[in-house]
């Protein structure tokens, strides 16, 4: 017999944990699902259960305390399980969430959903980006912080945004020689305009200062207005070419330098993960400050579908603090919908969060403004550079399809197979959309992402057969 809940929270990062805690505390029958074996998500990065922390960072402590609060509540926790599909119940009275995990039921049913799916890294294709040794910022942090494995001996960190500093500092502390951090954005003088917003962010400033001090000790230069232009090597990265870029992010010819490295860490900011929201048909809207296409939401964080809420970075990049607040708001909204909280109680809780939420949202907009990848970066890919990693399609092939009339991501996919591979367009979707926008003179907001169908990730055929038989 399958399990039935009032609320399913998908994702147990900052937003998902807060949502599940808030709803469960209010008495909503809640299930929270995550694909990792422990709660925490990419922000808190819980250590593997078999590892023991002798001491902890402030962030780790915060994540653990949230996870413990959640574990102390009646909410059901299903971890190590992939929510590979969400289907509307035939009677239209709720949702079936299909799961795949060693200890998970095959499915759960819920009247309401809170999607708290976080973000992916923005892919930027440059010659050599498919070589072993080129990893994302997120991958570098997972390797070093969670698994305690160094990706190499000598690294270049390139991209845009504060995650670069975090990745560089962690790598240096892990004993990796970081030869430089290339930040595409020229921070000055624009950064100064944002001083007042940053003053409300002491915790972040302290964190940033810590990273910079580790970088100083490691004698790692922070080069703003620079980017990688190519990684080279036979079976693995052996060197990288960097160059100055203009304000548009386009490399300036004649400024190239070659550096010997075995690792390239590439991080061009985050894209909201809207996979599940798109799968069930939530209406999306384009907002460059929020990281691209995001679900349309009302004040209660409800999407265009009644009883479906999205909280955290999956609804627009805003950082962990914003995600926690949004998780609480979504939890309150779900509790209100079931009648577990009165309108007055819900308003009271939300009113208390309002000033902090406004501050966090200002901060999110600042990050979006300063660090969204520049349009010129698409020129890093050469004709022969792979854009769709899975189906191995080059920029030339994508451009040819666009020239033949491929004016949407879906059309280019039908014509070339770009995005039909195992990653389902998570790596190439944004790149293809950027190329379409540039070639056809459209605004990025006129090139929506591809549709999303279950399974959200590859699953065994037996699982689909089982579903079909019933």
């Amino acid at each position, binding site marked *: 017999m399958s399990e039935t809940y009032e609320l399913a929270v998908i994702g147990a990062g900052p937003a998902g944990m807060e949502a599940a805690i808030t709803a469960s505390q209010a008495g909503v029958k809640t299930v929270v699902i995550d694909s990792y074996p422990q709660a925490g998500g990419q922000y808190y990065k819980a250590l593997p259960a078999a590892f023991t922390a002798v001491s902890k960072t402030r962030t780790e402590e915060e994540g653990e305390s949230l996870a413990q609060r959640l574990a102390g509540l009646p909410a059901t926790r299903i971890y190590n399980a992939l929510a590979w599909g969400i289907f509307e119940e035939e009677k239209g009275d709720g949702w079936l969430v299909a799961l795949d995990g060693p200890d998970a039921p095959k499915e759960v049913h819920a009247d309401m959903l809170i999607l708290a799916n976080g973000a992916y890294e923005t892919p930027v294709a440059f010659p050599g980006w498919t070589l072993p040794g080129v990893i*994302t910022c997120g991958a570098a942090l997972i*390797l070093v912080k969670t698994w305690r494995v160094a*990706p190499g001996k000598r690294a270049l960190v390139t991209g845009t945004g504060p995650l670069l500093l975090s990745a560089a500092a962690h790598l240096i502390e892990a004993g990796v020689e970081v030869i430089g951090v290339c930040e595409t954005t020229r921070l000055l003088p624009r950064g100064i305009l944002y001083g007042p917003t940053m003053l409300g962010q002491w915790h972040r400033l302290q964190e940033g200062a810590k990273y910079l001090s580790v970088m100083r000790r490691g004698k790692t230069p922070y080069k703003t207005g620079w980017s990688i232009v190519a990684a080279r090597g036979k079976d693995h990265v052996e060197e990288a070419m960097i160059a100055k870029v203009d304000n548009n992010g386009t490399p300036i010819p004649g400024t190239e330098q070659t550096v010997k490295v075995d690792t390239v860490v590439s991080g061009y900011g985050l894209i909201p993960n809207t996979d599940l929201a798109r799968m069930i048909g939530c209406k999306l809207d384009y907002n460059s400050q929020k990281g691209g296409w995001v679900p349309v939401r009302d004040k209660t964080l409800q999407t265009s579908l009644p009883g479906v809420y999205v909280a955290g970075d999956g609804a627009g990049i805003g950082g962990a603090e914003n995600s926690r607040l949004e998780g609480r708001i979504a939890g309150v909204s779900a509790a209100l919908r079931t009648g577990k909280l009165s309108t007055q109680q819900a308003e009271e809780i939300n009113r208390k969060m309002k000033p902090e939420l406004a501050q966090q949202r200002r901060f999110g907009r600042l990050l979006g403004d300063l660090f969204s990848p520049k349009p010129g970066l698409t020129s890093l890919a050469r004709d022969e550079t792979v854009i769709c990693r899975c189906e191995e399609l080059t920029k030339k092939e994508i451009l040819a399809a666009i020239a033949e009339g491929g004016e949407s991501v879906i059309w280019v996919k039908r014509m070339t197979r770009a995005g039909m591979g195992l990653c389902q367009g998570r790596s190439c979707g944004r790149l293809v959309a950027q190329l379409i926008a540039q070639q056809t003179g459209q605004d990025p907001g006129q090139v929506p992402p591809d549709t999303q169908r279950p399974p959200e990730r590859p699953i065994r055929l037996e699982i689909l057969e089982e579903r079909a038989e019933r």
Partner: protein
Amino acid sequence: MRISQTGSLLPKVERGRPVKINVDGKTFDAYEGETIAAALLAAGVYTFHLSLKSKEPRSMYCGMGACMECLVTVDGRQTLRACMTPVAEGMQVETCKDPEL
């Protein structure tokens, strides 16, 4: 390479129980709690699979289960994400195997 350094960003941790895994016929040390990707990279195995057409080496890229570049065969089960799959004693890992349907 496994990290032994610690600091304010990387507080000390004790790894899990040592286990042995077999990768393409060779035995490697690993620790309980590590993923296959972590164990392979620590052992200096960087090529996880070959690209579809030109058979170029590919390795873990995103580390969080999204990009599908770290696919390996584990105990005969194909296309498993090395970055999401924990190691276990005696596990047989095969890299660069052409998927069969």
